[in-house]
């Protein structure tokens, strides 16, 4: 009986895979690599102050300027013009030396689909700046920019964004694209917009003296407060509403403000007429985005920045629970809650939701729970919640493009330090105190008397200024942006990476040998989502077997299981033919087994894995039969 000896000398060969170029040392070394957290990370290589909001010309020029400084990493283009003729500038960031952007899995980030949520612009710009300035200094950023493409559109709804920053506005307007709309059904379009009545650059609330009014001035004369006692003496005021004139003379003020449908109800998936009118993708600013996304099938994850509320709203597959009684639903929710309490004993950021999805979507569900658990950890006081459908951009990102998507509601009430009595809410007094202490009084409009052409003598004030409630005061821009950039980068770091962990050749019988290949993906994301598989967009992963001429591959039939060679049990996938198609899920290890015949005493096999999003890896094993 011959003794068979296997030499499993494994050589790691780094093929075309850009993922590994860095490690292989083929790429120029990171000369400026900084390893100390106390060291310099390139912040002054391109200086941007994160302590203010920028106008549209300012921030688009910043994009152009930073691109000029990092042309090997960044590309700028306009994806189209909006209704009012503004360009929508998009930045593509990836190391051009490691491959084309379209060949790498990509992260999509857009900001401020709602024009009044301009914090999305600053957070997206910050991400651009963070990636570009740190590339040379930070090995984590370096590797991500080498391996991943970032498509960043800081301002989606640029018409409204431009107005929001430059003109007096309330926290709620302008929000929509500038399609004319007849909000009040009077036959006129956008005819009664808000105006800065007192000319102080802020839009506040108007009150008028009225003996039957419900409000009075607070003792400190900074707020209007509701009167609870109907018999109370003193001057009474009635609230008119936000600042403006009656432009069309119909007796109402600001009843038909600028803009049409909600752009985040304008995307095709789950679109409905009432919320997303007039038709899906009717707005240039949303259509340009979706057309770009369709032309870039490498988009793997999408981020959509909104304000406000500190939420991580994530898309999941549809809930398939049907016909549950309220009691059953309650019971299920109770079970989830109990499990969550248990889980949070070891991780206070643990997430779990009561949602049942079809088996073919279970992996997507697991992946999303995993990601948002870490998201809650990185973003601290942000709360993960399920995101809706109804024509929202993230729904189309997931359901039509097959990319995992997240809607981030940036910023929120400063409850973490303003809520002094710990009752879970910030009262007006607490909020004012917060303004006085944290913003040294800046940020509040004290009531003052004004002459109004339609109303006569009125009072304006008692509200916070712009960039207080929905968008953060400028000094907190960086605080929000930095942690959000880290979450985006964390997600990019979890893009799949297909690796061949081990190739083993073991003697079976006579000239037959087992080959066992362990392929793994340590990352959270699979090589493609359940949804992209369902959509028919997924490209399957491939295991490719090559060998010396004297090696023949045999078909694996059941009987060969008798020669069970390893400790890994029988859960394996057979290697069939030269190319075996499979799918590598997130955090998954797949064992392949095949059988070969070696003609002679020496030969070799080479096993490669090739994945569209997970990259390429291969290992070569020499086989020799000793005596």
């Amino acid at each position, binding site marked *: 009986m011959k003794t068979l000896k296997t030499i499993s000398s494994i050589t790691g060969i780094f093929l075309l895979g850009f993922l590994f170029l860095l490690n292989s040392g083929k790429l120029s070394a990171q000369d400026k690599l900084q390893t100390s957290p106390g060291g310099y990370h390139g912040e002054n290589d391109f200086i941007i102050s994160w302590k203010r909001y920028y106008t549209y010309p300012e921030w688009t020029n910043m994009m152009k300027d930073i691109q000029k400084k990092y042309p090997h990493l960044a590309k700028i283009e306009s994806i189209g013009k909006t209704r009012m003729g503004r360009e929508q500038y998009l930045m593509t960031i990836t190391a051009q030396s490691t491959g084309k952007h379209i060949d790498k899995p990509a992260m999509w980030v857009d900001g401020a689909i709602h024009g009044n949520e301009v914090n999305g612009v600053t957070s997206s710009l910050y991400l651009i700046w963070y990636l570009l300035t740190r590339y040379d200094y930070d090995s984590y950023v370096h590797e991500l920019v080498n391996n991943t493409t970032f498509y960043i559109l800081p301002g989606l709804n640029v018409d409204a964004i431009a*107005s929001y920053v430059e003109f007096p506005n309330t926290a709620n307007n302008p929000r929509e694209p500038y*399609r004319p709309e007849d909000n009040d059904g009077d036959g006129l379009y956008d005819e009664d917009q808000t105006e800065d009545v007192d000319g102080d650059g802020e839009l506040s609330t108007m009150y008028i003296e009225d003996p039957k009014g419900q409000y009075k001035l607070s003792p400190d004369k900074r707020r209007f407060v509701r009167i609870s006692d109907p018999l109370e003496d003193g001057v009474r005021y009635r609230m008119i509403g936000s600042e403006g004139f009656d432009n*069309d003379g119909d007796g109402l003020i600001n009843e038909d403000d600028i803009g049409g449908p909600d752009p985040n109800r304008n995307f095709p998936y789950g679109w409905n007429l009432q919320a997303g009118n007039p038709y899906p993708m009717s707005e240039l600013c949303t259509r340009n985005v979706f057309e770009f996304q369709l032309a870039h099938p490498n988009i793997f994850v999408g981020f959509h920045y909104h304000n406000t509320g500190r939420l991580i709203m994530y898309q999941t597959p549809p809930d398939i629970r049907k016909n549950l009684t309220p009691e059953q639903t309650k019971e299920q929710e109770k079970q989830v809650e109990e499990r969550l309490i248990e889980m949070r004993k070891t991780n206070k950021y643990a997430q779990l939701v009561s949602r049942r999805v079809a088996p073919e979507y279970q992996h997507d569900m697991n992946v999303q729970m995993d990601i948002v658990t870490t998201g809650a950890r990185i973003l601290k006081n942000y709360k993960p919640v399920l995101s809706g459908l109804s024509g929202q951009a993230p729904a189309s990102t997931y359901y039509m493009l097959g990319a995992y998507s997240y809607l981030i509601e940036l910023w929120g009430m400063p409850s973490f330090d303003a809520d002094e009595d710990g009752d879970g809410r910030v009262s007006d007094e607490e909020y004012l105190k917060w303004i006085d202490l944290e913003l040294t009084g800046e940020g509040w409009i004290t009531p003052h008397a004004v002459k109004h052409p339609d109303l006569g003598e009125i009072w304006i004030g008692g509200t916070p200024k712009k960039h207080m409630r929905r968008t953060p005061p400028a000094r907190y821009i960086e605080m929000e942006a930095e942690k959000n950039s880290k979450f985006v980068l964390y997600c990019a770091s979890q893009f799949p990476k297909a690796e061949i962990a081990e190739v083993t050749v073991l003697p079976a019988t006579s000239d037959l040998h087992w080959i066992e290949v362990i392929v793994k993906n340590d990352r959270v994301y699979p090589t493609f989502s359940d949804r992209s598989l369902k959509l028919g967009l997924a490209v399957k992963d491939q295991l490719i077997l090559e060998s010396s001429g004297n090696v023949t591959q045999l078909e694996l039939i059941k009987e060969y299981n008798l020669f069970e060679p390893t400790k890994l049990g029988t859960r394996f996938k057979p290697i069939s033919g030269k190319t075996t198609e499979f799918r590598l899920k997130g955090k998954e290890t797949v064992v392949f087994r095949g059988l070969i015949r070696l003609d002679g005493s020496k030969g070799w096999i080479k096993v490669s894995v090739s994945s569209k999003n997970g990259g390429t890896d291969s290992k070569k094993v020499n086989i020799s039969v000793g005596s």
Partner: protein
Amino acid sequence: MGFNQINSIPVLRMMFLIFLLASLQHSLAQKVPISFDAYHGYTATTKYLNDVAKAYPDITELLEIGRSTMDRPIHVLILTNKKTGTTLDAHVTLSNMRKENVQNVPKMKKHQGKPGQWISGSTHGNEYTGTEVCLYIIDKLIRGYNNNGEITTLLDKKVFYICPMVNPDGVYNSVELGIPQRYNSMKKDDDDDGRINEDGPDDINGDGIITQFRYKDTKGRYIIDDVDSRLMVRLGRNEETTSERWSVINEDIDNDSDGERGEDPEAGIDLNRNFPEVWFTDDGMQGGSGSYPTSAPETRALAEFFTNHTNILMAQNFHTSGGFTYRPLGTSPHEKLHPKDVAVYDMIMGKKYLELINEEVPQAWIYPDSLDVYKEALKKVTKNKYAIQRGYELPRGWRVSYNESDDRRYSFGMASDWMYMQYGVYATTTELWNPEKDLPDFPKLEDKDRRLQRSRALLKYQDDHYDGKYFINWKAFKHPELGEGEIGGWLPQYRRNNAFPGEPLLSVCEKHWQFELFRATLLPEVEISDVDVKVLYTTNKAQSATIQSEGDPVKVKKGKSIGKYRIVEITAKINNAGALATHIGRGSSLAGNRPDVVWLLGESNNIEFLQGTPYQKIGVLEGNKKIPGYKARPEKQATVASAPSPNYSRYRRFRRVSYDQPGKKQTGSTRTVKWLVAVEGTPDLKVVVASQKGGTKVKKISIK
């Protein structure tokens, strides 16, 4: 067969003759002559539209509403008297506007203040008979204006939006190039070889025409017809034959040498599946065509046009063929239609249509008062629950594409469903051309082998009436890839789908012009029939006064007034003189629609509203035509829940009030709108009624 029908046939023929004579008379005075002896195709249609717009500047305007993939304009010809009509925004002066001064609201055009009718053709490029009908209708309208009273009135009061080619690329390829193309054109790589549209059909024998190539093939699925040897007969699946087998393909070679012929042509997507009505399947997957609803430039142009022209109430989308009309819905079951709309569609339009195409009108439409009897009777003979609900099965000539017996949708994302469901438009899709009816002297076909008989008869018809010039006889040709065979067959333009030019086409055009003309006469028309001005109180220097009008007393405090100062009661009577209501059954609640409104306007400083809001929402005005077979549910005669404040003075007015009319809800086709105002001096006031689909009208009032 109903009585009406029997009587209507000779009448129709008479009408047809009269129209033929009339058109002969006018042809002399024709500024832009047109003939229907040949298809116009893209080039001649575009030229015709431009010529018409130039020759008739007072009643036409040519609009480019978008461009196709191949950069051809998508044209809409607006037909209306450009001197008449008004819009609300022309009368309202806005004041104290926001400093930002965003110019996002275009000024409305006069025609947008008139009830509108949309007529389009060639959504499918190879169905260009629709384009011809559009041109015929344009010709009728421009020549009828100032010559025919009915047409003159129509163009004075209504507007037609005629889009002869929704899909200009498809028409160009189908007619000019002879490559029938149902779809739009798209720059795309069907065969994934990195090249765009590189393998379409080819004229391989260089005769300037792309016909067909037939070759002997033991696996072929065609045989030569034993009656007419020019005809290739397709065998059924697994059908045995003793005759020699042939294969028939388009005249085509493998341009990109990938082993396939014609696998990457210019044809893109089906535009009539690209609209946003039920584009997704019920389980959230793609149902319609394109990468998303309105992804095609042509579809989007229409969507944008309909969004900006809320005055459209009637729409026709011409397709071919079959000689029948689809009314909505095809994407959803019947319940989604408002019962009133079902009656308007079937009992009014459908009845007229069947009469025009000379087909039997269902008994239930003739005796709509007996619908309940028909419903009972139907229960015994049909399983179609929708037919039972209605009281009749839909006839061949007037139908829905929804499969009612299997309760299954026909398709996704279709235009007329979208127009009806989302824009509140009475839209239809007419499949023009039924040779068996539209060709005079066409032989009567037996039921057996009907298709084959039809093919033989059509071939013979063109021999007899068109000197055989629509068919190229088979000629031997050696195909570079397939070897010996023959090239020949129908000229692609006449192979199927489209009415033969000349008399057959004219007869198709005439019937459908009659139908569209009929539908135009149904459009609503709001009017201010009367404004009554009553001065209740006059003073030169008002300090205070109490006026007792209807309802609560009104206290007037007028401090600074020094001019002549009066309290005036204004009563306007509004009515709808048109046949149909100012919205379809479900129309006013749709996102882009609104109920009709009446404004009382003056310069803002000289009018003070005491009772009645400056504008009042008057709901939907019914038309003056009784809708057969439809009984409105009795309206609750309760007062509006949130009635406006009776003392609606400036001091208190800036609060949310209802703009609905005060008092009892008014229904029917008329409204009485009242205001009590204080005025200074002798201002000119205006009453403006603005109905989206019923038109905008203005009446000036002077107070002496």
